[in-house]
């Protein structure tokens, strides 16, 4: 078979162009990288530039991924892909990648390693874990995973016998929201959030900055909803992209959201604008709620929130008019002030009053997906239990939750309730995602063994005894995504587009090989990931080859109350089977059973509250070294109110250092003096300012908010770390941005 090759193709086409003379239909219309010709193969997989896992088609030729594009067949995200998703090839081909196993030879943090073979590295890991188990018990090893890809490693660590696994997804992100909604409706919100933005008549965002926070299908649904005429209310101290599209932007005084939410509830109840029939049919505790909100008038809320009472009324009326098609987005990163579960409860209560849960245009219900099971031997039980306080000190951080990272750090630092001597970090960036980095560094000093499995040499790798280079998402199988919170639930797979580069290995392989060496092979009773995958998807009535070619398969969903079938189970799986406006669980635990506003500490004179968020070109601290994304946004800026800046003599564009209430300093960062933020807070995009020298593009670019989050306010209900309790002032610097 004669193959057209790139060089030959270009030669032929330019020769033809020469013949035609004017150059019509010549090589000019084709990219230099030669795509779209006979040898390009399309591999369906899903993205991991963030956790939304959009469907991706990878164009592959000659063992190279030439381009990534959206998978038009994907039931949730279709043909779309965000800037990060489109730039996935630049993670795959990042020259800074971890290339082979490394064993530390320098001091912790110094970053001196020697290259090791996989055999040696795996033996090293297995021997250390065996030793730790003998000396201190299996619980002495803490596990810091992140994301669905950590599934295989999670099995390994559970089988090893440690209950101490903790992900920032819970205590540093969405935990309070999931607990708050579970207490109210009997069901956590889950991911992707089942908010019916596209059908909504009124969308309410409390600090959510959709647009700067880009999950493709969420942006699509948000914009579609607005185009169809939905009203938009945005509560945010900063003039976000979403705020710029809003009918009402409420620049709320930070920390007063519960006052606003209670005032809205007050108006709906006092003016009998709530969905009476829905509440009577589905909810308990209405009488107590009515009594509870009696005094929370818009005028009272105005004095707390600095939002005019009239506007609080107008926005409540706007919601009432749209009910039940009101989408109050539960948010995602909601660990702000330590009262976050109660704020989530207040949002859930408001959703219930508007009759919006399980209704079109509000929040829709998940639909179960049948999954195959691979039977495993029973997991060992831990007598000593978890060390992070989940389920004990913080009663609603349950066993099913993802644990408390900062609790595990504290336990390690203080050897209490028992010594933690080993850490295994998989795909989590502990120095950037866990607040109070000073504690994390102290805890690391207590360790006898630390292993990091990662793709890039992020800062924590310098502290590890063993670094294992993982293949990127484009070079490996991961456990399939089983998504129930989509109107059409679906199963989507991740499969390799090419073989792993360098000596990197897929996570499943590393976990299975370690299991073999640790006497835990029985917990991995499958030959390879295809065997694993085919057993999991067996009940779906689709063969593996078909699934691999489509990338995803979807099923009919039952998103609204009226569609529910027997097999879907109860609509409200709470203790009472009803929406609990008054939470019986919180009452039993002696917490406030209805949300109350409590004032938060205000910044001292000259200081601003530090708030942070996302930019659409970056995912947390994981994409700043990506060549294309670095090109779009190489560093962050600190937003400071223009008037505040003028008074303090700070100029737009000036490079400054921020210092917090404890004297912690940031790296140099440029000021964006803008009218688009309140004068009592400063805002920056999270993820910049890494101190990892191995990330040659991202190293010390911009500033890290984590450097300035030296204190937290812990949610007593479920242990989340409220992080918007730090205050910063501006120290001018004459220095250049480093």
């Amino acid at each position, binding site marked *: 078979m004669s193959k057209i090759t790139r060089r030959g193709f270009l030669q032929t086409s330019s020769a033809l162009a*020469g013949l035609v003379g004017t150059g019509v239909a010549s090589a000019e219309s084709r990219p230099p990288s030669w795509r779209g010709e006979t040898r390009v193969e399309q591999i369906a997989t899903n993205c991991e530039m963030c956790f939304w896992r959009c469907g991706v088609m990878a164009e592959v030729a000659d063992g190279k991924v030439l381009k990534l594009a959206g998978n038009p067949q994907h039931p949730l995200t279709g043909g779309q892909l965000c800037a990060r998703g489109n730039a996935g090839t630049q993670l795959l081909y990042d020259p800074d990648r971890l290339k082979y196993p490394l064993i530390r030879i320098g001091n912790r943090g110094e970053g001196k390693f020697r290259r090791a073979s996989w055999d040696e590295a795996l033996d090293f890991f297995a021997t250390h874990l065996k030793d730790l188990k003998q000396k201190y018990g299996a619980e002495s090893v803490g596990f810091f995973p992140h994301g669905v890809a950590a599934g295989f490693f999670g099995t390994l660590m559970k089988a090893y016998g440690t209950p101490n696994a903790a992900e920032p997804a819970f205590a540093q992100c969405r935990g309070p929201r999931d607990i708050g909604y579970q207490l109210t409706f009997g069901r956590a919100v889950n991911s992707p959030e089942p908010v019916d933005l596209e059908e909504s008549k009124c969308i309410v965002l409390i600090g959510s900055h959709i647009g700067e926070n880009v999950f493709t299908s969420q942006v699509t649904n948000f914009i579609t909803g607005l185009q169809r005429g939905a009203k938009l209310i945005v509560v945010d101290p900063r003039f976000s992209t979403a705020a710029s599209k809003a009918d009402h932007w409420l620049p709320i005084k930070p920390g007063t959201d519960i006052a606003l939410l209670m005032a809205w509830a007050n108006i709906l109840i006092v003016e009998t604008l709530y969905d009476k029939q829905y509440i009577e049919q589905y909810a308990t505790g209405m009488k107590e709620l009515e009594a509870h909100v009696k005094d929370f008038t818009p005028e009272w809320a105005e004095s707390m929130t600095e939002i005019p009472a009239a506007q609080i009324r107008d926005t409540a009326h706007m919601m009432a008019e749209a009910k039940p098609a009101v989408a109050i987005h539960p948010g995602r990163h909601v660990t702000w002030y330590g009262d976050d579960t109660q704020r989530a409860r207040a949002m859930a209560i408001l959703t219930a009053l508007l009759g919006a849960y399980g209704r079109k245009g509000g929040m829709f219900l998940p639909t179960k997906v049948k999954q195959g099971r691979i039977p495993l031997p029973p997991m060992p039980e831990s007598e000593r239990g978890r060390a992070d306080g989940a389920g004990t000190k913080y009663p609603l951080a349950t066993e099913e939750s993802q644990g408390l990272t900062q609790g595990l750090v504290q336990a390690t630092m203080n050897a209490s309730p028992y010594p933690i001597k080993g850490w295994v970090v998989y795909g989590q960036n502990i120095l950037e995602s866990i607040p109070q980095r000073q504690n994390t560094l102290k805890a690391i000093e207590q360790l006898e063994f630390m292993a990091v499995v990662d793709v890039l040499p992020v800062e924590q790798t310098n502290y590890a005894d063993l670094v294992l280079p993982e293949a990127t998402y484009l070079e490996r199988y991961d456990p399939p995504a089983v998504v129930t919170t989509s109107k059409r639930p679906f199963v989507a797979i991740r499969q390799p587009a090419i073989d792993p580069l360098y000596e990197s290995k897929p996570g499943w392989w590393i976990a299975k090989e370690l299991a073999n060496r640790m006497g835990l092979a029985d917990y991995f009773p499958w030959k390879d990931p295809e065997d694993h995958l085919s057993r999991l998807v067996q009940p779906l009535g689709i063969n593996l080859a078909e699934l691999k070619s489509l990338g995803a398969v979807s099923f009919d969903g039952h998103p609204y109350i009226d569609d529910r079938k027997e097999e879907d189970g109860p609509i409200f799986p709470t203790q009472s089977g009803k929406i609990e406006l008054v939470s019986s669980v919180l009452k039993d635990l002696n917490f406030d059973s209805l949300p109350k506003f409590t004032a938060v500490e205000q910044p001292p004179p000259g200081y601003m509250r530090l708030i942070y968020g996302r930019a659409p070109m970056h995912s947390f601290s994981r994409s700043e070294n990506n060549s294309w994304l670095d090109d779009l946004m190489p560093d962050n800026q600190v937003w400071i109110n223009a008037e505040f800046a003028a008074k303090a003599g700070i100029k737009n564009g000036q490079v400054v250092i921020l210092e917090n209430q404890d004297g912690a300093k940031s790296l140099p960062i440029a000021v964006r003096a803008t009218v688009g933020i309140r004068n009592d807070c400063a805002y920056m995009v999270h993820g910049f300012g890494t101190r990892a020298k191995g990330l040659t593009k991202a190293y010390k670019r911009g500033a890290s908010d984590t450097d300035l989050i030296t204190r937290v306010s812990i949610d007593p209900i479920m242990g989340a770390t409220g992080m918007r309790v730090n205050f910063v002032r501006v120290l001018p610097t004459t220095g250049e941005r480093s």
Partner: protein
Amino acid sequence: MPRYAMVIDQERCVGCQSCTVACKSEWDVPNGFARTKVRQTGTIGTFPKLSTSFYVSQCNHCDRPTCVPACPTGATYQDQSGVVRVNRDLCIGCGSCVAACPYGARYINAEIGKVDKCDFCVSRLGKGLQPACVGTCPAHAKIFGDLEDSSSDVFRFVYRGAAKRMETANIAIGPNVYYAGKPEHTALALASFAPVPPRTIAPGKVWSSLLNKVVYLAVGVTFLGQAVAFFRQLSTGEKQFEE
């Protein structure tokens, strides 16, 4: 013949730069440059009554393009469907067209020494695909189509809606990228990123006339060389390309 046009819906755009990166990936655009990009205007108004807008820029495929006459070799031309294109074989990378474009839509790709810019992904259109930036946009803010087709979305926006051209009193060369959205947002984008008068490269005349002779020679030689290569290839068959 179709007459291609694009509408950018500023009400939809969230400034996420998906289009920028999809285009970069499709066309191997080097860092520091873009065939399409999104810029945000400053925030204006009095707190809390504020306004900001996003401006997606790219080649406008103008009705009366200033880049075409500026090109000394005929590399830049407009095809019958209105798409302004560049024949890379004729391009000498002189930058005349870059200076002549009021919208800053062109750049010299240093890797190949030629000019590059948006061509509405004509090679994709031929395969029945949309331009790379259109399909990837999570907000569906880029709408592409044929103005001769009265059932197309672009037709609806341009002839029945309020889509505007980014033109000023002085610079009105018929851009075929239109902007839809609230009038104040379109106005803000235009005020912030107004087209600039076309420039010529100094010393224009001498340089370009000199250049033309060189180019005719170069084109002739290239043609001969390529013709020889082509016929040799036909006679000898193709060897496998190895990297």
